[in-house]
Each structure stands twice: as structure tokens, then as C-alpha cells.
């Protein structure tokens, strides 16, 4: 065991870091304040291949590993969590669901343009009354001849209003409980399908989040994604991988916090010396670095298990739980180290403080991760 990365991985890390620092960093505050989805940045991300990281070249992807994928997200989140979140939702939720469970025709029609970054993807499971308990999905899908007719509404869909294609979950068989939920691919401009309210958020503001409304939305039978009734089961599998990406965002943001805190502490002087010379500040930095490192290796281990096609449920949940929690702590400490300046938009830690909170909520709250971990420790039945 030598914890080393391939030469290509190191090159990816360098490139993403350079791109993020040169092209994203100067504009993050603008996107944040205007709550603007950065289309131009997305076009550049597409050129670099970052919108089809995981999919093989025959589907116009870069064909990289999950470890490489984590590296990309970590590098983006170190500068801006919200662009990293959008990249994650596009890659490992929407596109990956189509890649894993779609027909060849669906892959041809949707996955390829998604991987090339010509389409932006959304993946929408959460509903107003079905959050942590996604099995409580209420959106209906009724078979009518060769069509499905969808009715209901989704909430918190990343890219809800900017997406070209959305994967949406709906109850196709009310009697069958969790086994009665199916996934559908809906393209933009389908009649009866529209975005509702755009959320005005605390953080991750460059990543657009909206309601999706299906009002007698009629889609052909070929819109069914995966087997009928398997939508929920498939969604859980997709989320296992998705959670690793939220862990990667958390790790990246924790590193960003550490980076800015270090440089600030070295340069800010009080009582005639840099505050980095006060042991209280040193201990904050040491703890922040240690936790970030621990989170990082939990995350890379989960990614590496996934690359080996092993079950990652528990490892991904641990990575997400721990990374999310320590990243929130890191941002808190980073603002503390910056004092009053950290409370202003003149320093990047203010934004980290707001953005990072998503990591303990999205793709399963910290509590839900603990449930997943406990169930795998105790056994599902005994855990209750």
C-alpha cells in the first residue's frame, strides 16, 4: 500500500487546479452574488472533458476512474464548491444513471451529448414531502397506450431550470411500494414539463436549484429508464457513488479553507507578530489539516473501492459523513482565523462558510449517512 497517484492523475490535478485558479477564482463572487449559473465556464469545462469524466470514449467521455473523478471535484471545490456541485450532479447523478441503466438508444441520444457537455443534466428524486425518505415519492406515472403520463412536482433539482435533460422518478405502480417507483428521462421543452420556483440559497449559489413540475407530461414508452419498478433501487445505487462526489467537494472545500487560513495567518500581524505564531492559531491549523487529510483518504478509499467494483455503500457513507462534518468545522475555524475580515466578502472563507453546509445535507443528510453506516454494522433487520 503506497497511497500514490498515477502520473496521469497528477497531471489532472495540476490542470484542474490551474483552470480553477485562473478561470473560476476571479469570478466566483460575481456568480455567487448574482446567483448566476456560469454557462461560459461550463463550455470550458466541456472542452476540457470534465462533463463526461466517467464514461468510456465510445460514449464521448474521457473514460477515467472514480479516483480521477474525485481528483477533479476536489480541485474545483478547492476554489468553488458550487461549480463542483454542478459538475458532480451532471456527471455522477444524471449522466451516470443513463450510463448504468439506459438502453443503447438512450445512451446514443442523451449520454453522448451529456458527456460532450452539449446537454446539461438534472437528476430529480427529492419531492416536497419526500426528502430523506425518498420512498415517499408521490409523483405519478400512468401508462396510457404507448405513453407514460407524469403528474407531480419535484424540489431541489440541481439544474432544474437550466437542464436539457432530466432523470425524474415517479410512482408507476402504487401497490408495489418502493418497487413501484420508476425512472424516466424527460427532455427540455416536453409539453407539461417545466421548472418551477428557483431556490434563493444560503450557498452553492452558482449551482442552480429549482422545482420541476410535471403537469400531464406525456412521454413515450422509450422514456422509461431502467426496468419498470426498479427506479428507486437504481437511485440508491447511483447515490452510493454520488455520495463519494459530495465527500470530494467537502475535502476540496476543507483544503481551500486551510489554504486561505494558512496564508492569512502568516501575513496578519497582531501584538507585533504574525498570528501564525500564536499557539492557539497553530493548533487550529494543525487540527484542520489533520481532519482534511483523514477525510481525503476516506474519500479516495471509497473511490478506489468503487473502481474495483466493490460494494461502496458503507465506505461512501463514512466518507461523506466525515468529510461533510469536518469541512463545516474547517470553514468555521477558517472564518475565526480571519477574524472580522473572514466575516466579509473580501476574503474567500466567507463563501466557503456558506457553501460547505450543503455537504451535510445534499445526497443524504449526515443523519441518513449514520443510518446507512449503522445498518451495515448491525444488519438491516436488527437496526430496525
Amino acid at each position, binding site marked *: 500500500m503506497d497511497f500514490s497517484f498515477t*502520473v*496521469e492523475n*497528477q*497531471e*489532472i490535478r*495540476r*490542470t484542474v487546479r*490551474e*483552470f480553477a485558479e485562473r478561470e473560476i477564482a476571479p469570478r466566483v463572487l460575481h456568480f455567487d452574488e448574482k446567483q448566476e449559473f456560469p454557462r461560459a465556464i461550463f463550455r*470550458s469545462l466541456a*472542452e*476540457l*472533458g*470534465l462533463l463526461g*469524466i466517467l464514461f468510456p*470514449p465510445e460514449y464521448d467521455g*474521457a*473514460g*477515467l476512474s472514480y479516483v*480521477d473523478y474525485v481528483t477533479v471535484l476536489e480541485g474545483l471545490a478547492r476554489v468553488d464548491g458550487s461549480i463542483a456541485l454542478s459538475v458532480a450532479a451532471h456527471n455522477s447523478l444524471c449522466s451516470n444513471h443513463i450510463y448504468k441503466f439506459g438502453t443503447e438508444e438512450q445512451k446514443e441520444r442523451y449520454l453522448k451529448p451529456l458527456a460532450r457537455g452539449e446537454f446539461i443534466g438534472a437528476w430529480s428524486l427529492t419531492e416536497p414531502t419526500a426528502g430523506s425518505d425518498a420512498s415517499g415519492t408521490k409523483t405519478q406515472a400512468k401508462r396510457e397506450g404507448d405513453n407514460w403520463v407524469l403528474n407531480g412536482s419535484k424540489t431541489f433539482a440541481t439544474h432544474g431550470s437550466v437542464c436539457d435533460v432530466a432523470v425524474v422518478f415517479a410512482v408507476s405502480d402504487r401497490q408495489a411500494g418502493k418497487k413501484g417507483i420508476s425512472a424516466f428521462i424527460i427532455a427540455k421543452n416536453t409539453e407539461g414539463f417545466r421548472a418551477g420556483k428557483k431556490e434563493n440559497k444560503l450557498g452553492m449559489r452558482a449551482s442552480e436549484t429549482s422545482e420541476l413540475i410535471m403537469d400531464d407530461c406525456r412521454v413515450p414508452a422509450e422514456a422509461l429508464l431502467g426496468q419498470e419498478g426498479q427506479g428507486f433501487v437504481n437511485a440508491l445505487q447511483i447515490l452510493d457513488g454520488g455520495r463519494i462526489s459530495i465527500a470530494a467537494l467537502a475535502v476540496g472545500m476543507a483544503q481551500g479553507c486551510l489554504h486561505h487560513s494558512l496564508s492569512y495567518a502568516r501575513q496578519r500581524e497582531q501584538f507585533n507578530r504574525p498570528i501564525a505564531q500564536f499557539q492557539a492559531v497553530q493548533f487550529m491549523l494543525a487540527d484542520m489539516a489533520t481532519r482534511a487529510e483523514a477525510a481525503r483518504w476516506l474519500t479516495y478509499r471509497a473511490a478506489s473501492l468503487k473502481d474495483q467494483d466493490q460494494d461502496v455503500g458503507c465506505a461512501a457513507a463514512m466518507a461523506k459523513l466525515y468529510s461533510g462534518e469536518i469541512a463545516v468545522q474547517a470553514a468555521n475555524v477558517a472564518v475565526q482565523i480571519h477574524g472580522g475580515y473572514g466575516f466579509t466578502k473580501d476574503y474567500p472563507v466567507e463563501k466557503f462558510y456558506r457553501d460547505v453546509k450543503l455537504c451535510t445535507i445534499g445526497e443524504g443528510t449526515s443523519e441518513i449517512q449514520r443510518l446507512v453506516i449503522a445498518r451495515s454494522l448491525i444488519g438491516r433487520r436488527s437496526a430496525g
Partner: protein
Amino acid sequence: MKIIVFIKQVPDTATKIVLAPDGKSLDETNVNFVINPYDEFALEEALQIKDRDPLTQVTVISLGVERAQNALRSALAMGADGAVLLKDEALLGSDAGATARVLVAALKDVSFDLLLFGKQGVGLDQGQVDIRVAEALGLPHAGVVVKLEIDGGRAVAEREIEGAHEIMNFALPAVVTAQKGLNEPRYASLKGIMAAKKKPIEIRDCAALGLRADQVGESGSLTRIKKLSLPPARKEGHKIEGDPASQAKELIRLLREEAKAL
């Protein structure tokens, strides 16, 4: 068309420079090494020529230590076709003259139409190697170029000179050095990075270059670094207080008496 781009690995310009205990080199801990920014413009220019004419072959050559492979790999990931690292213990300490000698040796038996360099290497900033190579090979040289057009066997280069631009028209093969503004270097794409995996980096030492140890390195150099020192720390600023009229008065007094600028 065959283009050779010479690239040097240098400390990132954002690096906080710390001197090594020997007093004549850098402490490399925590230093992030990158492709010399001007060389990136040179490489991008070569890649743009290749974009327009896919038959173009772009080779990057670097004289450096082991870690310079990273710079070469980045160049391959951006789209260069081949890379050569000139690496030998004996090459350490080569000055501009010795470096040019090594590069000329590396070009022996190699066919090319264009040699591209950055206008200077940040760090030492001597800007000599390219001119020395051109001189040794008897080739036309266009330096500090902000626009380059290739047409058949000739090139037209626009170069920055004091207060004006000069247009040069010359025959290939030739040496051209890149200035900021020539182009906007691309980022390597994920596909480019993966494709670079299959492109080998050729490593050549003095023996392979047909050079004797006394022709290169410190013994083959006319100049030697005796000592490096950091610029003196800047004195603390001085804030002038009071109403605008007395501030202006005080400023003029300081400019005259302290700064002796008036």
C-alpha cells in the same frame, strides 16, 4: 511541417523564493515547478499551427533534471507529439552558452522547419539561449514575437520593439521566440492527458548527445553563479496626515528631501 519547441521548467512565478544554504541556488521545498510561461506561448503557437495543418509534428525538448519530465508530460497532454529530456549530472550548472551548445547537439541529425522558444526563461531572465542557437546554426532569428504567420517555406513575424512593432519576413527554418500576447495557451483536456500516457519521453545524456563533460555544465560555461541574494525588504510605508493642503506640502518636502526625486 516539423516544429521543435524548447521548454524549461521554472518555479511558479507566485513562489515565495527561499535561498538554499549554499547561497547560490533555490531551496526547492514547497516550490511548485511549471513550464516557463513564455515557453507555453511558444508551445501553444506550435499546437495552433498543428490544428490548422494536422500533418505538423510538434516535438518538445527540455534540458533539465528528473522533475522536468512533468513539464514535458504537460506539453504532451496539451497536444505535442513527442518529447525529449536532455538529462545528465554533467549538465548541471550549464550557463546560457553551454545550454545552447547542448540544444544544438540535440538537433544534430534532426530535421525541422521551425524552432520555437519563449522570449526568456523567468528566473534567470537572460534571454540568450535562443539567439545563441540561431547563431550556431546560422538561422534567421525573430525575437519577442506577438504574431506569426507561416506560408509555405516562409514566415512573417510581428515583433515588439521599443515603442513600435516590426514586421519581419524570413525563410524557414528559423528561430522564433514568443512574447505574451502571441496567443492564449490552452489547458490540457482529460483526453489529452490520457493520450499522453502512450507518448514516450526520450531521455538523452551527454554520451547520446556526443558531448564531452568538459563542454557542458560548469566546466563548459563562461559564467558561474557565485551568489544569490534576495532583494532588500521594502521599508514600511509612510502615511501623510492632515488636511489636503498640508498633505501636499509635506509630500513635496518628502519628495525633495528624502526621496530626492524633485
